[in-house]
């Protein structure tokens, strides 16, 4: 019954598998960070491979297959899951967290850096991931691509389908939001004392002005 199948089907499949399957772990990891659901992540990766196989002919041999696969996956995510993920995030994010203009100051970062604080050795990588998962999805996406997958800005722009300038601003913002979550975590867990924040430079203009008012 399979007689009419093209003879080179098997060749094409094994070529596809040889090139793509080694990236499955990376794709799954990124899918999990994007969807925050193991079930959706699995479906997303499976769909990515199916699409990649169908469009394998359009893949330019010799170019970056990992970036190509991530482009397909990111595209599928944006079309099919992003709205759902966004709705869930808006529902679970406290209102004050949506406006995240108060980033962590340099002095606050330095408080983390203090050898006595030993922040990163007290921090489990699961806790970092938990903090990352709280970053809104559009920002989280570029942080995952840059800081976990190590793609360049240009590659990320290609994968996400936006200008390099947008990648830079999302990455900057996403990283600062994550930093804020980690800093808040450090205070909550008593890794650093909140007192050090009082000494720092103002985190934003309003705080600066308020402090001036209080002092004057």
């Amino acid at each position, binding site marked *: 019954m399979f007689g009419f199948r093209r003879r080179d089907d098997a060749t094409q499949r094994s070529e596809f598998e040889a090139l793509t399957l080694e990236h499955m772990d990376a794709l799954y990891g990124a899918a999990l960070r994007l969807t925050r659901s193991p079930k959706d992540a699995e479906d997303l990766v499976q769909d990515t491979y199916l699409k990649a196989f169908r469009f394998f002919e359009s893949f330019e041999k010799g170019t970056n297959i990992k970036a190509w696969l991530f482009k397909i996956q990111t595209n599928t995510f944006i079309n099919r899951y992003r709205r759902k993920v966004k709705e869930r995030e808006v529902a679970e994010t406290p209102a004050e967290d949506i406006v995240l203009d108060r980033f962590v100051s340099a002095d606050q970062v*330095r408080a983390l850096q203090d050898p006595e604080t030993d922040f*990163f050795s007290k921090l489990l990588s699961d806790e970092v991931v938990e903090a990352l998962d709280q970053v809104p999805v559009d920002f989280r996406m570029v942080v995952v691509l840059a800081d976990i997958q190590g793609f360049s800005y240009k590659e990320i722009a290609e994968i996400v389908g936006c200008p390099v300038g947008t990648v830079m601003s999302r990455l900057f913002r996403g990283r600062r939001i994550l930093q804020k979550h980690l800093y808040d975590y450090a205070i909550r867990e008593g890794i650093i004392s909140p007192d050090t924040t009082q000494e720092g430079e103002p985190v934003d203009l309003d705080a600066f002005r308020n402090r001036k008012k209080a002092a004057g």
Partner: protein
Amino acid sequence: MDCREAERFSDLSLDGETEPSEQAAFDAHVTACGRCSGRFHAQSWYQNNLRQKLQESSDRLEPPSNLKVRITAQISEERSPLPWATPALVAAGLAAVAGFTWSQAGATLDPEEPVARHTHNLPPEVRSRGDVMEVSRFLSAHLEYPVELPRFDEERSNVRLVGARLASIANRDAAYVMYDQRGARISLFAYPKPRRFAPPPGFGEREAHGRTLQVGTHRGYNVVTWLSGNTVYALVSEVDHDRLVELAASQDR
């Protein structure tokens, strides 16, 4: 370069994404400005440690052990991405290669095959000329079991019957009926009930017009499936579950 610009450029510098002239201006500012120098070093320390933590967790993460098997099975079911030979062969091929999931799993109303057929998006073998007549005739000529098509008001529901083709699900000939709702595709599948029958895991039950529907999502697609007589029906689409439930309920009217 001023302090604000230097702050913006610190990420670019850490990522190795600056132009040579930008890097020179950045270095000059940071060397001269104590505040930015302190900030940059703190940021660089933080960023390196953070990346390490993120990568550690990503390295530890393992996909479910059966994912690779599912992917290769799915690909081997797929014909190579080359142009189809003839429509007749396509139909025959579809019947020949389908059926890997259910025939093995057997016990559940696995939505995998209907969803896979839906994503294939093959052209209809018969087109509707405004009513269900052609499609009904085509299906009853090719299938050994009756398929009840939902009957609904096209104008009111905005759902248009496009046509139908034969498919293969659970190793049996199946009806694949295509609808369109303002550009969104809705696929209806009908196929004989497998010997053992259980709702798909993760699906919820919904009652509509005295009929029990299994409602869930598979690979990002909304699926509503139900049993009527000895035939399983499954609607697959990107349109809302409520819409699909409405369509399913209209089958009896």
